C-alpha cells in the first residue's frame, strides 16, 4: 500500500486527519515521518498541525515498532494490584525500557493507562490477546509466547 493510494481514498478536510493517520499506521505499523508532508498537503494543513495531532495522540508512533506489541497496564486498578512490578520485570527480561523496541526490532514494550479490564488486573495485552491476573512469575511464559506471536 503506498501513501498516495491511502490519500486518494480519504477526504480532504481537517476532520479526516485522525482517520487518515489510523489508516497509515495500520498499513505501515507506524506513521513514516516522510508521509507528514503529503498528508498536510492533501488536507490543506501545515506540517506542524499534522505533527501536533500525531504526537499528541499516544496511539500514533513515528518510529517503526516491532511486529509484536506487548502492552502493560499501569492504570490505577492495575497499579494497586502490582502492575508496576510487571513492567519492571518485563523491562529486565527484555533489556529495554518501556516505550522501546528490542534490538532485533521484533518486539515493542509499551505502557497503557487502563485497558478497561480493571477487575482482572494486572492486565497485559500482546497483539490483541489479553492476559489477566498477571503475576511476575507469569512474565516469562507470556514473553515466550509473545515471541512466537505474529
Amino acid at each position: 500500500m503506498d501513501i498516495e493510494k491511502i490519500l486518494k481514498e480519504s477526504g480532504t478536510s481537517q476532520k479526516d486527519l485522525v482517520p487518515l493517520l489510523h489508516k497509515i499506521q495500520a498499513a505501515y505499523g507506524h506513521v513514516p515521518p516522510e508521509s507528514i508532508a503529503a498528508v498536510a498537503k492533501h488536507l490543506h494543513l501545515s506540517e506542524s498541525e499534522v505533527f501536533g495531532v500525531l504526537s499528541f495522540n499516544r496511539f500514533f508512533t513515528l518510529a517503526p515498532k516491532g511486529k509484536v506489541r506487548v502492552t502493560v497496564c499501569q492504570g490505577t486498578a492495575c497499579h494497586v494490584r502490582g502492575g508496576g512490578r510487571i513492567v519492571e520485570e518485563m523491562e529486565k527480561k527484555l533489556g529495554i525500557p518501556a516505550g522501546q523496541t528490542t534490538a532485533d526490532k521484533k518486539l515493542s514494550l509499551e505502557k497503557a493507562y487502563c485497558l478497561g479490564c480493571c477487575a482482572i488486573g494486572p492486565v497485559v495485552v500482546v497483539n490483541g490477546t489479553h492476559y489477566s491476573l498477571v503475576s511476575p512469575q507469569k512474565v516469562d511464559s507470556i514473553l515466550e509466547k509473545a515471541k512466537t506471536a505474529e
Partner: protein
Amino acid sequence: MRKLSHPDHLAEWKRIIQEERPAYQKVIAVSSGTCGRARGSLQILETLTQEIERRKLSDTVGVEATGCHGFCEMEPNIVISPEGLFYKKLEAKDIPAIVERTILKNKLIPSLVYEDPATGRKYPRQREIPFYQKQMRLLTENNYRINPERIEDYIVLDGYQALAKALFDMTSESVIAEVKASGLRGRGEAGFLTGKKWELCREAHGHPKTIVCDADEGDPGAYMSRGLLEANPHSLIEGMIIGAYSVGASEGFICVRTEYPLAVKHVTLALEQARKHGLLGAAIFGSEFHFDIQVVQVAGAFVSGDETSLIAAIEGRKAFPRQQPPFPAQQGLWGKPTNIHNVETWANVPVVLNKGAEWYAKIGSDKSPGTKIFNLGGRINNTGLAEVPLGTRLRKLIFDIGGGIKNNRALKAVQTGGPCGGCIPAGKIDIPLDYDTLSQAGSILGCGGIIVMDEETCMVDAARYSLNSSSEESCGKCVPCRVGTKQMLEILNRITRGQGEALDITRLENLAAVMKAASLCGLGQLAPNPVLTTLRYFRNEYDAHIREKRCPALVCQGLLPEKKKAKNTRRPETGRKAI
C-alpha cells in the same frame, strides 16, 4: 430484511422475530465482554457450541455470546435460562459435565455454583447472588439477554419503542420537558441537568447542530462505558436519536477510545443494522426526521474525554480543552451548537421515555434521580460493574454488593471518581453516593470509579500516585495545571522519600487553591482532590512522613526500617511499591 417506514411496523417486526426464533428449551449466555475474553470466554463458547452440536442438541439449546454481566471477578461465567442458573470461573473441561448434567438432567454442579465467601452459602441463581440481588439494574439487567451483534435481540426487549413514541406522539419540546422533569443528570463528570442542556442546545442559533457520545473513557479504573457499548450498543444509539430529534440535530458522533476494539466493533455493527432497518439515516421510521451517526476513534489521552477537547479531536485538531463558556451546547463542533453526553447518560434516555419522568424521578435521591453504574476495583472481593440507585450508601456498595475487603483486611479509604476524585475515609462509609454529598466531602462522583484501599495502603503514596497520573495526563495548555500538577508531584515525591519539610503542607494547599481556581478544564481543577482529601482525613500520615520520617503503612521504600526493606522485596505480590 425489512425497513421500518411506520411506527406500527415495530410491533409487527417484534412479533415476527418472536415467531421465527428457534424454540429453544434452554439458552446459555456466555459473558464475553473484553474482560470475559481475557479470561477465556471465547474458548468456553466454542467448546459449548461443539458439545451441543456433538450431542445433536442444536435445535433445543441455544448458545449466545453476550456482553459483560458485571461480575468480572467470576469470569468466565455463564447464565442458563430460563432458570437463570449462574456458573462461575469455568474451564473448558467443565463443559461436558454441564451439558450432561445440567442441560440434559436439570442437575446442579455444586463446584461451579457461586459461594458467598463470608457465609459459605451457595447461590445457584444469578439474581439471588448478593452481588446482583442488591443492585437495581435499569441499564444492565438485559445484558445477558442480548447478543450485541443482533439488533433483533434489542427489538424483542421493546427496543426503539421510546424512539417511536418520541417521534410520533411527542414534540421535541415535550421530550425535553419529560427529560427535564425526570431530573436525569449527566453521568460523565459534572452532573449537569441533561434536559437543561438539551434546552440550551435547542434554543441556540446555528445549523447544523450535532450530537456527541463521549466514550473516550480515559479514567483509569472505570469501564462502565465500555461495558454498555459492548453489551447493549442500541440502548445508547436510541438515546442519541431521541436527543437529536429534541435539539434538532442532523449529525452525530460516537467517540470511542482506540483501546476498546470490541466496543468499536459492536457499535459500528449496531449502527449499520439500525440504518438498514430505517432507524437511522434518512426518513427515520418513515418520518421527516433525518439523522445519522458516525464512529470516531479517538487515539487516547485522558484529557480528550473533556467535552471541549473531544470537539477538537473530532475536528481533527489537537485534543486541547478550551475555556467555557461558551458551552458546547451553544458553540461546539465547527462553532455550531453541540450536545455532548456520556454513554450512560444517553442509555438512560430511552428508560426515561419508556417509564415516564415521574417514575424515573422517584428512583435514587431527591437531587440525583436514577441509577448509576459503579466500577468496583482495588482491594475489594467482588470486582466488577454494579448498578445501584444514586444515593445508595457507600457501605452497601462495598460490603453488601462488593463482598467486603480482600483477605478480610480493614478498610482504610475509598477513592471515588478516578484520579481526580478524593479519598473518602473508612469512618465516612455511610455517605450516600450522589453528586452533591460527594462534592461536599471533597470528592466527586465522576463517572463512577470506586477504588478500595485497605490498611496496607499509604495515603500519601496514594495521593502521589493520583498526582503522577494527572501530571502525565495534563495537556500542558494552561499553566496552573501543567506546573501545578508537576510541583505537587515533586513535593509528594520528596515526602515519600523522607525529605519532606514542615512547610510542604502549606505549599500543597496553596498550589491546590490556585489550580482549582485557575485551571482551564476539569483535569486541573480536580487534580488536587486526592491531595486535599488525604490532607483533610489522613493528616497524621503526612505528619508521620514529614516529622517522624516514618511510613505507617510500610509502603514508601525510602522510609522503611532496614529489616522491612528486605522483607518487602521478598513479597512482590503486595505490589504497592512506589513508582
